[in-house]
Structure formats: C-alpha cells, structure tokens
C-alpha cells in the first residue's frame, strides 16, 4: 500500500509542482499589478485574497461546483483527444479544429432534428459532432500513415482551415435573421438537458462515463494494446504483426472523435453556434493531457482543475479586482513548466517518476519528424 502511494506521489510530483510554480509566478504578477491598480501601493495580501476568491468561487457553493463541472466537461474530451494520441506516439495539436468542426456539425444537425423528442435529438446531434470530429482527425491520420506528413504540421494547418471556413459559413450561409451577432439557428430539443443547478447539463455525466471507457479501451482491449505498443515501440509493433498505418489512422480518428464531442457539448449547452466560437478549449486539451500524464483519470483531474479556474475567475475579479485573464496566464505557465519537466526535476531535485516513454517521444520528436 505504501509503495503504491509513493508510486502515485512520484507520478503526480511534476504536475503538482508545475501548478504550484505557476500559481507562485501568478502571485508575483498579482502583486506587481496591484501597484498599478492600487494607486502605487503594494498590497502584499492581494495574492492570498485573489486565490481565496478563486477557490471559493469554484468550490464554495453548489453553484460554483456546478460551474466548475460544466467548464471541466469539454476539457475532459479535448484532454482525451490529446492524451490518447500520446499513447500511440502521436501529438494531436488539431484538437482546436476538431472541436470547431464537431461543434458546427452538432449545431447544424441539432437544428435540423430540433423538433424531435429531446433524447433522440440530443443523441443524433452528439453523434453528428462525434462523427464530424472523427472525420477531421481521420484526414491528418491518413496523411501521416500514407505520405509521412507530420501530424503536428498538418493539424495546425487544419486548425486554421476549420476556423476560417466555419466563420465564413456562419456569416454567409447559416446565419439567421434576428440576433445582433452572427450565429446559427437554435438547436431546439437538441439542447443538452440540465439536471443539476442552473446550468448543470448531462454532458457532465457523459464526461464522467467516458473516463472509465477510455481506460477500458486502452488497457483491456486488443486495440488499446496495439495503440500502446505502436506508441512505445513502433518497430516491435511491426515485428508483432500490427499495422502502424492502420493504428495511426484509427487513433487520429479517435482523437478527433473526442474533440468533436467536446465541441458538441459546448455548442449544445449554448443552443447555437456563434461565429465567434473560440479555440481555447481545444488548446487547453494539451495542458490537460500533460497534467494528467496521458492517463484518463489524470485527465479528469486536470480538466477539473482548469475548469475550476475558469469557474472561479469571475469571483476573483469581483472580490480582488484581479482580471480574469490572469487565468490564461497561469494556464500558460502550467504548460510551460510541464514542458520543462526535466529542468524542474533537476533544479528541485524531485524524485519523480519521469514522463512515460510515449510522452517523451511524442513531445520531443514532434517537430523533427519521425515517420512510420
């Protein structure tokens, strides 16, 4: 039991340290900004006030907890969209584009089936989002498997393509009359039903359900074994008779499917697709996956952490006058410290378990190539 605990502690050490360091740097920024906002006076207690407001905003009330879970829901999916890729040695930067494509498809199909009974409409709209996301992951998968085009490069380009194409489509073709901003039609009955609090929709339950499903897929099925083998040692996978090409296509599609679902959750809880729908949750998936060490349970925890920051930020702004944008800074810092894992381990002399070989290979090889 103690050994198990220490193993867990070793795995969690670097993510936890990254969070602590990011919050520390954030505290310095808050102090410095207090010089400007507080009329030239340094307020040494401000970081404490701000972080206390952040925590109580995220967890201090039922409303806060529900908001945290709602914010965490799409991040679980976009985190898996990156984490599952890591397992196969793939770095899916395309979560952002897959989110947009999935969300857009869910909005259009949702509006078309909005007159059906809610369970049917929701299921069809989510399915549409998942399939569209998977298709948008399939493209870089095929490109990599059959031409060697690196997924980092192709998914970054596909992100831009999705972003501009969909903004154009919403503005020109699918825009509805009435609202003062460009958006698609209401999804009607495909709106995700709320089961708790003001906005606690059923997507929360789906996010909680998908974690054990992915765990089961990766560690209990032959497909998961193949994915992990190809990620850990592609040569051995070939030797064992697996087809790395097939697995790359399957895994990238699977990543796209998760991201597409994440985008669908956002859109179907909002009720329509706004032209300004952003790419933030897609990119946050990278931080979530690294925080969670590419493990489904870790990804769930990482998503809740980032979700809590989003949910608590408004309280922080109201009570401590610290702008909500600080959250983006902290999130960026977490990613930075996670990426500098080796440096952190050395400089702080932490006896931490290193990243899995899949992660190291994937992140470090990403820009250099390393084809099939």
């Amino acid at each position, binding site marked *: 039991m103690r050994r198990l605990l220490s193993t867990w502690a070793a795995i969690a050490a670097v993510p936890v340290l990254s969070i602590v360091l990011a919050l520390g740097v954030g505290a310095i920024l808050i102090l410095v900004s207090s010089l400007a906002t507080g009329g030239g006076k340094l307020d040494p207690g401000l970081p404490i006030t701000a972080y206390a407001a952040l925590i109580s905003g995220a967890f201090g009330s039922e409303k806060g907890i529900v908001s945290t879970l709602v914010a965490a829901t799409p991040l679980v999916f976009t985190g898996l969209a990156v984490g599952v890729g890591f397992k196969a040695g793939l770095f899916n930067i395309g979560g952002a584009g897959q989110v947009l494509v999935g969300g857009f498809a869910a909005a259009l199909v949702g509006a078309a089936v909005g007159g059906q009974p809610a369970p049917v409409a929701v299921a069809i709209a989510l399915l549409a989002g998942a399939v569209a996301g998977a298709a948008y992951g399939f493209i870089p998968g095929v490109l990599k498997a059959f031409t060697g085009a690196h997924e980092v490069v192709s998914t970054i380009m596909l992100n831009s393509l999705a972003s501009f194409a969909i903004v154009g489509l919403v503005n020109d073709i699918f825009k509805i009359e009435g609202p003062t901003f460009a958006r698609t039609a209401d999804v009607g009955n495909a709106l995700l039903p709320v089961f708790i609090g003001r906005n606690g929709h059923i997507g929360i339950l789906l996010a909680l359900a998908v974690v054990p499903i992915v765990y089961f897929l990766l560690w*209990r099925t032959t*497909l998961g074994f193949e994915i992990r083998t190809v990620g*850990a040692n592609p*040569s*051995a996978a070939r*030797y*064992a008779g697996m087809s790395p090409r097939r697995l790359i296509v399957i895994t990238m599609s699977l990543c796209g499917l998760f991201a597409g679902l994440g985008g669908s959750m956002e859109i179907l809880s909002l009720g329509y697709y706004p032209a300004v729908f952003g790419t933030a949750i897609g990119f946050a998936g990278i931080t979530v996956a690294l925080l969670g060490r590419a493990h489904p349970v870790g990804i769930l925890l990482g998503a809740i952490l980032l979700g809590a920051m989003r949910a608590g930020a408004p309280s922080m702004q109201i009570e401590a006058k610290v702008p909500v944008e600080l959250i983006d800074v902290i999130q960026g810092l977490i990613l930075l410290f996670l990426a500098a894992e080796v440096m952190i381990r050395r400089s702080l002399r932490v006896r931490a378990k290193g990243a899995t*070989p899949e992660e190291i290979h994937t992140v470090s090889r990403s820009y250099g190539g390393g084809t099939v």
Partner: protein
Amino acid sequence: MAASFRTPRDGADPGVDRGLHERTTMTAPAPGPLRLEMLGITKRYPGVVANDAIDLDVRPGEIHALLGENGAGKSTLMNILYGLATPDDGEIRLDGEAVRIDGPSDAIRRGIGMVHQHFKLVPVLSVAENILLGEETMANAVFLDRDEARRQIKDLGHRFGFEIDPDIRIENLSVGWQQRVEILKALYRKANLLVLDEPTAVLTPQETKEIFAVLRRLRDEGTSIIFISHKLYEVLEIADRITVIRRGKVVGSRVPRETDEDDLAELMVGRNVQLIVDRGESHPDGVVFSITDLHALDDRGHEAVRGVSVDVRGGEILGIAGVAGNGQEELVESLAGLRRPSSGTVHLGGQDVTGRGPRALQAAGMSFVPGDRQRFGLVLSFPIEDNLVLTQYDEPPYARWILRDDEAVRSWAERAIKDYDIRTPSASAAASSLSGGNQQKAVVAREFSRDLTVLLLDQPTRGLDVGSIEFIHRQVIAKRDAGAAIVLVSAELDEVMELSDRIAVMYRGEFVALVDAPTAERDQIGLLMATGRRDATLAAAAATTMASPDEIAASGGGAGAG
C-alpha cells in the same frame, strides 16, 4: 565514509608518470603503490545489493580482467569508480591515496579513462574533433589550436603503435578503429587507468586480435587496464589477473596459467556449466522452408542480398556465417516479413509466402527471434507478461473478440518465467528492469512456445552470459529434435559451428559456400568469411584485414549493409 577529498593530481604530465611505469613494469608483484585499490565497496539499490564488500586492486602496467555474468555487479562497480554512483560503504585508493571521486570529470582528472561498450563519438566529426570535445586545446581565448591537437594525437597514436589520421571522419572508420579513437580519447586526457567495458563485443575476430595488440602495448608502456568481459577465452588470452564476481561478491581471483575456461565458467555461474552443448544427432526429414534466388535492397537502395537459394529440412539447423554487414540483416528481415524482397520466392510448408508480412508468416508457422531484442523483440516499458504475448496478444486464450484476458496472460507468463528461468521479481515488472540475458529468455520463451515449423534465429545469444547461452542452445537443440527447420544467423562463428548441421557462408550478399558442419574446418570457414573465396591463401586474407582504415571501411561498406 572513510575516503577523504584530495586535490586533483598535479602529476598529470606523462613525463612524471613515465618513471613510475618503467620502475614497475618489470616484474610482478610490483613494488610501489598499487594504481587502484577498491576496498569493501558496497552499493545497495532498493531490494538488491549490487556490490557487496567488493575488493579489487590493479597494479601499474597490468591488464586486470573483471569477469562476471550480466547483472553480477560489474557495471555498478565501474560506475562507482567513474564517479557515476556513490558507494554506500568502502574506500577507493588511487596510487595509495584515499580519494572520493566526484563525477566523471573528476575521474578523468585523476587519470581514469572509460571506454564504453557503445561508443560515444560524433560520426560527422573528425578523429581530432572527437578527441578534443570537452577538452579543447586553445590557441587563445577564442580559437582552437587544431594544429597542436592534431600533432599530439599523431604522437600518441605513434607511441602506442597505431598510426591514425586525425582528420578522417569517424563515420568513415571501421568499428575497430572507432574503438581505438575511444582509447586515444582517454589517453589524450592522460589516463593511466583504462576501463574497457566489453570491448570485443562489437569486433570481428581479426579486429579483436588487433585491439589486443594495442592493449598489450599500452600495458607495456605502464598503463593499467581493467578489462570487463564475459568471454572466457578472451580473458584467458589477454589478462594478467582475473577477478570473478557473482551476484555482487568477489568469488575468486585467478591467474590465466593456473586456470581454464571450465574453472572460470563454474566460478562465474556458481555451478558446473556445459560450455559446448551436447547436440546429439539430428534426423532431418522433408524440406519445409525453401528460398529461391532471393534478392533484397538495404535501406539506402543498394542490393544487399544477391540471389540467395537454399532448402531447409525439418529437424535440421542451417547456420549462416559471415562478417557483419554482408547482407545477413537484410536477408533475415526479408525472411521475417519486415523487408520486401525485390525478387525471388520463399516457400514455407509448400505455401508461397514471398512478400508476406509478419502476421501472415506467423500464421504459416514461423517464429522469429530478432537480432535486436530491444528494438524489435520487446517493448521495454511494458510488463514482462505483455511482452510474453507480444506476437499472440489477439489470439485465444489471451484475447476473446477484442477483449484481453489478463488472467490467461498472467498464468502463461508465470509458467514461462518458471520454465525458461526468467529472473524477474514478478510478471508485472517492466521488461527494461531485466538483464539482457533474461530479456532474451523472455523473447525465446515467447517464440519457442508456439506451434512452429520454421524457427528463424538472428544472433540469439548476442551479449549474453555463459549460463544463458547454454540454456538457449539447449532449447534450440530441443526444437530441432521436435522437427523444426531452424535458420541460425550469428556473428559468433563458434556458435554457428557448434549448433549447425549445415553452414552457409554469406559474403557480399551471396552464399559463397554451403558445407556440412561435421566436416567443416574452422579456418576454412573463417577464410571464406573474410575473402569469399575457397582458394584464397591465408596471406591474402591477412593482407585484406591489415589494410588501412579507409580500405577497411570501404570494403565493409561495399558489402552492402555497411
């Protein structure tokens, strides 16, 4: 710890050391202080005592062999000497003075040089540049003094009997010469205690002879050498003294003239070892594996396999001998389905399997033990149990439909660990935590335990200790007796000679000879390996291998795989 700090040796000038050397090389036991004493060195890792009160001393101008199986604690001891690990207990003395070695750069300052098994050279840089790395001779604050460095390197090579061109690039040197560059690197840093970790593992017999000559010359000049190996005959040939360690303890010391291979093997393994497996008689029957005019390209698109044809019968072992890089790797990969042959056919049990992938070949009854177990044979980060089903993971009973059956995997793994004597704390330990010998046993357990008609073995015992070699050889013989057609590719001529019924000699992508093993003569095979010709004389062979480094590199590269 009893050891104390000491300032870096100021006597790093070779001129100062010279006197010491001359005084001490004449007779043994030598007067004056010992070059190195390691006293009661103990190092514990969680769950294992890697070094248990080890004593080791090395005299000036002595080649001292450190003999032990994989995992016996040789590497730990040398890491402690090189400052890469800190001992929990014990004392290190250099030239009579207790020292604390604080990292590799400290070790180098104190005159300790390490030549690793895997060379640490930059292929695109020249000999001089590689030697200078980290130890730049500066003409002034900004620029390197290359001329001075080149001169020093030439002088050193001259002094120790190997003339080397400092401007040649590492990638154009043969493996044997690269090793000399590593040695030169240590000498340039004024090493007077040289540690060589399995230096012959990558060399051909001829290169081994040449490097031994270099080592003897170094010894005669006064350098102390620790020679790590598990090849008994080499140790007997080169060492002045031999210390044997087993499971972290010194189990004996020997002088070559008072011992033999059997004695050393027994000391090393702890029991009586049969060095040459009792192969019994083979009873071959019909042809089950048939290769016709097979051609294959290497990674650079050059033809590496040029028309190989052979029939292998069930119940016989066909050995393929040859100097590394003559197309064996490409041949094996073509047969195993990892490389598409450019032309020719392969038949397995009457079925045409030309160009089929690994999955189809496995289904047709082929098992393959790859030469590079860490690259192909295992997924090091996975548990042993997953590795034991790596090629059967989706077949019953290990999986039904798409669901894996962990219990079936675990029970097979536990049986395999017992039957094949794989030393591991548990079936769930990562493959990377096992020693090389045990990793190979895991691959062998997996591949031998299948229903098979053809068994393809590529370097099945490379880098293994005698105990593991004996075990694996027995398993191979048992498979032969069970009727498998076995193809054995090995860089160890002795292994091919011992196990095979017939021997094919591969030279520049072709089989230049196919002989019956019982009537084959070792010298004749060696000559065929070196020249590809039966009528070549020994003098001609010697001329080829004594050629300059460029020529050696060129002939090696011309052979195909390069």
